[in-house]
């Protein structure tokens, strides 16, 4: 092409205009990453929400009407299992696509093994123009997110949404937060063990109690039972949802936001209008006492279940508010929304909550709903899937290759290769096992097809070595089929033993 003098002059006359717009161009290019087709991704996780207590999955009480509304434009996963039975292990799996025996965040407030940290969701989305944000109410998940904080544009500590600031490690020692927090937890009253400090802990304990009373008094009209807290951080769910609504509108696009909210985690203290929401005569199925029974009576478990269900209804209503806002603002048209949880809760067999070695269905089966940008139809997926599948699925959607270390698979319908139900899905509980050692004190479950095998290692003699359940015919896990279905039991035992041998090999 020939450029004459006139063309050249025309071009130079445009230079001041280009120069004046250049900063704007740079800014828009930074925030959009130059990829206009990349969808926003919002992972919203409600802690300790069991699929077994959600009406969308067939629970007797109408706990999740808003989730059902959301499901009308989402993919609903009916057999989605958490890889762990508490926040640390399951969230680490979700964010790294690896099972707990690989990432090794297997203990309370544990951290991910250094070799697995680069496998985190945020780093893998790096360089793709995404604004990456991580926030958790739950300090156990914050511990993990902090390990990835360098891979995020925005990392926030729990105090951002807390009514009170009782911690100092996140403010003074934010760079070394994980270790400083353990030191703080050792010295000051943050949980249910006596602190090591003699004088300051006592003063701190009294000050914290005074603050707690003040907060409870201030919000008693809205939260008659108390404001839900964890490690003395007090959270209002509605404030958190308002914050998320704001995020979905204001974050530079495209964004990848992981938001981990504490409700309906214990304490089960819903807002006033949801207290005693389910005043019915319905009684859950009575199950035999487990060898892991914590001694709770059926009456007490039913009472806790009622409170938990009330709290789920509260969570659902707040999610409904978020959903309505996203519908109204048009966020759903360009955002992939993932609704999920990290683990469930048990109110049966003498066990309450999730701090247990048990791996029964209510603790492992959690909701997963994925709404794609502009989706209008509901789709139901019944194959067995796992928390480790979320990371490869998100990478697949964003056109990023999954790393070799990843143990999950791309979820259907995003990949049709994972449609078969004969895949092995594992879950692990190993809080008592040393972190970097072979698994010798643990509970491991394997779900394959319609069957579930649970293997107990290193427990007392009253705990059996194996339990086998036929989930298709006995979804409540009432009948142990370890002796009745010897063929299936042997097949699953072989798979499980081979897997354990493989994962233990690294530590022998």
């Amino acid at each position, binding site marked *: 092409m020939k450029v004459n003098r006139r063309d050249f002059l025309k071009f130079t006359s445009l230079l001041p205009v280009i120069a004046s717009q250049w900063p704007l161009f740079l800014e828009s290019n930074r925030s959009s990453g130059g990829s206009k087709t990349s969808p926003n991704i919002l992972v919203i996780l409600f802690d300790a929400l069991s699929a077994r207590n959600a009406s969308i999955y067939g629970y007797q009480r109408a706990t999740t009407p808003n989730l059902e509304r959301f499901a009308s434009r989402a993919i609903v996963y009916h057999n989605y299992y958490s890889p762990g039975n508490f926040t640390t292990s399951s969230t680490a799996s979700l964010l790294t696509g690896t099972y707990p025996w690989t990432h090794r965040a297997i203990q309370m407030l544990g951290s991910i093994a250094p070799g697995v940290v680069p496998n985190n969701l945020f780093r893998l989305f790096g360089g793709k123009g995404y604004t990456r944000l991580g926030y958790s109410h739950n300090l156990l998940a914050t511990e993990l997110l902090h390990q990835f904080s360098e891979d995020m544009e925005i990392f926030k500590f729990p105090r951002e949404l807390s009514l009170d600031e009782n911690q100092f490690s996140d403010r003074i020692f934010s760079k070394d937060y994980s*270790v400083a927090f353990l*030191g703080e937890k050792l010295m000051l009253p943050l949980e249910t063990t006596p602190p090591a400090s003699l004088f300051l802990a006592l003063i701190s304990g009294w000050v914290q109690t005074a603050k707690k009373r003040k907060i409870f008094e201030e919000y008693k009209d809205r939260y008659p039972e108390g404001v839900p807290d964890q490690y003395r951080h007090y959270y209002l769910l509605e404030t958190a949802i308002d914050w998320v609504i704001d995020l979905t509108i204001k974050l530079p696009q495209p964004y990848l936001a992981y938001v981990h909210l504490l409700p309906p985690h214990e304490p089960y203290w819903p807002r006033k209008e949801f207290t005693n929401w389910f005043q019915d005569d319905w009684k859950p199925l009575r199950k035999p006492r487990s060898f892991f029974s914590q001694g709770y009576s059926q009456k007490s478990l039913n009472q806790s279940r009622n409170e938990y269900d009330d709290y789920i209804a509260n969570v659902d209503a707040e999610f409904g508010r978020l959903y309505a806002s996203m519908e109204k603002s048009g966020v759903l048209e360009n955002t992939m929304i993932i609704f999920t949880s990290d683990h469930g809760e048990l109110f049966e067999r003498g066990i309450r909550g999730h701090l247990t070695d048990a791996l029964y269905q209510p603790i492992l089966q959690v909701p997963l709903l994925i709404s794609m940008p502009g989706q209008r139809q509901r789709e139901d997926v019944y194959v067995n899937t796992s928390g480790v599948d979320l990371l490869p699925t998100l990478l697949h959607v964003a056109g990023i290759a999954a790393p070799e270390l990843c143990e999950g698979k791309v979820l259907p319908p995003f990949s049709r290769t994972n449609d078969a139900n004969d895949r092995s899905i594992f879950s692990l509980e190993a809080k008592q096992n040393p972190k970097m050692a072979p698994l010798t004190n643990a509970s491991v479950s394997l779900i394959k097809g319609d069957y579930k095998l649970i293997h107990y290692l290193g427990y007392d003699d009253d705990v059996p070595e194996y339990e086998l359940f036929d989930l298709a015919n006995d979804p409540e896990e009432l009948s142990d089929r370890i002796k009745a279905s010897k063929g299936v039991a042997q097949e699953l035992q072989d798979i499980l033993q081979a897997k354990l041998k493989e994962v233990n090999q690294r530590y022998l």
Partner: protein
Amino acid sequence: MGIWDVIGVCSYALSFSLFESLLVWLFFLILGGVLPEKLYRSRFVVITTVVVFISAIWAAFAQLNYDVVYDWHIVEALPWLAAYFISIAVFYGLVRQFERFAKLIYKVVMGISVLATLYVSSGVIGVVIVIIRNL
């Protein structure tokens, strides 16, 4: 958790303890400056030792029952505070009254001062490690 992190947790705990000890020491230093010499400064080491030791026992007792103690209102705490101050007064009286008792305590304090040196040194090392970890 690697060995460096384990050392880190211990360092935070040691630094915190040192900070707490310094606050206690500072409190008694100020008290020594405020109270008349005859009442306190003349037997500073012995009286301070007795008060800190008894306070520590009471504090440890309170920490063991922390779930109850933290929830106390001032009215509930009053009888225990009274008992605490009475125990301090009793031992203060013993120190003032019985020279031999005071000398015995002084001897014990001198005997364990080596441990105090170790404690302060480890606290300082803890502080250094905390600083390094946060650089």
